């Protein structure tokens, strides 16, 4: 197969970027998109053109590092997959493929297709955990968790933090990412004591990082490689309102517990 790639090239965070056109020739349809880029990069290198920088690591759809927008779709044309699991057989021979980085203000471009997503780490630091010290945890079966609750927590916990939700959103909102973490921890007994602080902390960190607000277009759900459902955002909003109300009546206390 042969393809024409229009790739976003940008030397560093301060430079302005532009699209460059490259040909990808004799591509095996079973190559992943990233393997195709490897082949193109070796060719560019030999021709003295700087190879295209892109983020990737596990190449099996779980680490959340890969982050390309292909023809306008974060993670490309395949439903429920990451870019590294997009195969060239998903395209037609002769296709023109536009390759861009995540376009989110809070994820500055570092080079070409590589963006800085450390804002997500700072959102987790603002409450996306259970405060437990190492060493003296109670016996694991001491607090039974119903099967259904454990499965629902897993469904939310499966978010890989790639940022596609923000990249797909017209406001650049990563609300699905925050909603997933809040749903994961707030639905388990272990997460209850910090329930209110968690949601307030994470949502406020999201604002502080300069992400936009959610306007419920559900574009995030459509592109999420782990198919995290939009419903979790509804739950997040309810938790946020309840925690805000509680915080308003007990300004010096903890915004724990009462939500939802």
């Amino acid at each position, binding site marked *: 197969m042969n393809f024409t790639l229009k790739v976003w090239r940008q030397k560093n965070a301060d430079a302005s970027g532009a699209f460059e056109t490259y040909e990808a020739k004799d591509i*095996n349809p079973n*190559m992943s998109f990233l*393997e195709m880029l*490897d*082949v193109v990069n*070796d060719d560019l*290198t*030999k021709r*003295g053109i*700087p*190879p295209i920088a892109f*983020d*990737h*690591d*596990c*190449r*099996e*759809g*779980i*680490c*959340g*590092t890969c982050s390309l927008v292909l023809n306008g779709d974060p993670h490309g044309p395949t439903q429920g997959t990451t870019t590294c*699991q997009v*195969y060239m*057989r998903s395209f037609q021979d002769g296709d023109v493929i536009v390759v861009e980085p995540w376009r989110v203000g809070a994820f500055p471009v*570092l*080079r070409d297709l590589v963006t800085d*997503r*450390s804002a997500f*780490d700072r959102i*987790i*630091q*603002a409450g*996306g*955990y*259970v*405060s*437990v*010290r*190492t*060493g003296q*945890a*109670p*016996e*694991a*079966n001491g607090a*039974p*968790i*119903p*099967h259904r609750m*454990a*499965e629902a*927590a*897993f469904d939310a*916990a*499966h978010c890989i*933090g790639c940022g596609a939700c923000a990249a797909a959103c017209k406001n650049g909102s990563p609300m699905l990412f925050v909603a997933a973490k809040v749903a*994961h921890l707030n639905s*388990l007994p*272990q997460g209850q004591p910090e329930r209110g602080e968690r949601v307030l902390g994470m949502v406020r960190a999201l604002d502080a990082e300069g992400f936009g607000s959610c306007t419920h277009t559900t574009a995030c759900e459509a592109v999420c490689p782990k198919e995290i459902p939009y419903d979790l955002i509804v739950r997040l909003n309810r938790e946020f309102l309840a925690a805000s109300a509680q915080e308003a009546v007990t300004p010096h206390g903890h915004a724990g517990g009462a939500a939802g």
Partner: protein
Amino acid sequence: MSAILNPRVPEGPLAEKWTRRKNEMKLVAPNNKRKYKVLIVGTGLGGASAAASLAEMGYEVESFCFQDSPRRAHSIAAQGGINAAKNYQNDGDSVYRLFYDTVKGGDFRSREANVYRLAQVSTQIIDQCVAQGVPFAREYGGMLANRSFGGAQVSRTFYARGATGQQLLLGAYQALSRQIAAGRIKLHERTEMVDLVLEDGKAKGIIVRDLVTGELTAHAGDAVVLATGGYGNVFYLSTYARGSNATAIWRAYKRGAALANPCFTQIHPTCIPVTGDYQSKLTLMSESLRNDGRMWVPKKQHDSRPPAQIPEDERDYFMERMYPSYGNLAPRDIASRAAKRVCDEGRGVGPNGLGVYLDFADVVKRIGEEGVREKYANLFQMYNEITHEDAYKAPMRIYPAIHYTMGGLWVDYQLMSNVPGLFVVGEANFSDHGANRLGASALMQGLADGYFVLPYTLGDYLAGEKPGSRPKADAASFQTAHKESAARIERLLSIGGKKPVSEFHRELGKILWHYCGMARNDAGLRKALELIPQLRAEFWRDALVPGTGAELNQSLEKANRIADFLELGELLCRDALTRAESCGCHFREEFQEEGECKRNDADYAHVAAWTYNGEGQEPTRNVEPLTYENIKLATRSYK
């Protein structure tokens, strides 16, 4: 015993060693803890759990990872599960049985005391992770669920669907994040360690490269912890993340740390087969699938009929035939070699004959497609994405692939290398798994080391170092290491050759897979020891590394790592050549009995740890004898 390898195993009965050592260890007073700085390289299960625990205890911690976030460390990709001797199934499990299975699984090439401790703390790991909110699978009554893994006849594996590594890593990452927010950990992401700095023979710092700006900086600490994972990418095609590399442990080796058992490389039996030369990566299918999947090949050679058209009596369920008591759940090395054997006989399936079937027809009949989906959904989906085949309808095709390195930097019982102050945890060290790792044991070791061992043993070391005595990062030793790192990068950039570095990596991988893969022999290893130095010379003559050192330069990152692989690969073959026996995953064709490993306990019941003697010099092979006080060395049988 070699003078440099003192394992420092505590005296006394096996079951009491760890308690006894904990009681003997020196403590650091709370007000002194903040005066010590610990540098931790790597943020996977070992590194993140260690960083979080040490910061909670009050030490100043700096954490480094080459990824853009600690959450991306490759521990995240582990699928199947984590072992613990909880005996929740009431099937007779115990700390002793987990210990025994692990030592036997490793073909009696691991240190008894370390493995026993691992089994002991395994139960605490599950408690810890549940408290963090890790959503392990549950029974309908709310109790934790378990499944079986290879090499065990009990059900002791805890899991979170097929993404156990992800959930455990996120737990550790969240604990780490909490400490970052509290100001107790300073995180350096997109930062790679390029050298280790010693002062008076002790590890006191590192040189790192900022992968965005290219800037090299020196960092001083009172101790250095390497938690940088395994070096399986030396083989090029593997199940490792593309970024996994050996650089940190290799530079430590060149500064005097001993590298143990480098030839012990695990080959995982259930990976998606290689399909083309362009391929950059092999994808694992969790071993848990062998609970329900049955491995088979046609009885006839070169039988190209689709699997559905091959009748039952023309199928060879080779695992069940060869290993009736463990069947499809025999350990990984055994299952890998069995698959290789049937393919070598010309009975492999798929386009190039390098594959066997893993068939789910029986379980689909038993519990329905929906039931199978609940247990393994994401694995079947992943298989479908990669191969475009539906494993609910037709069997998966699988083939062995490089998956884990049991070798690594040598450590004593305290997890300290032979370089004082240099600690090594998780896959980066050699301990616990011997010559073969059982499934669901890697996650267990990473978290055991980081949460429950290092926090004690590191304190014992620091208590012997004067608080506030660490060198400044501009001391002479740091300046020298800094200059050497800069010179190395300059040298890579100025080779000015014609060949992209990825091609060297692929060639190295082929040499290693061919001559030092699932089977090795004397002649092949000698051949590899000729080919690798030639390839290395060619690399330094003809590699093409574009760009500069003062920018985000992924070609340079790769070149730097491949240069290390080109040296490590040679040591790996040298180690395999010297070990004239077969054990676990190290299968020397000259030493076999009915196709199984033939160990030589009289001459090789030891750890072989190599020390560097300078460029162009042969390294020294040091030996730590393995003494078994509690287990009788037996021929390993899963029949």
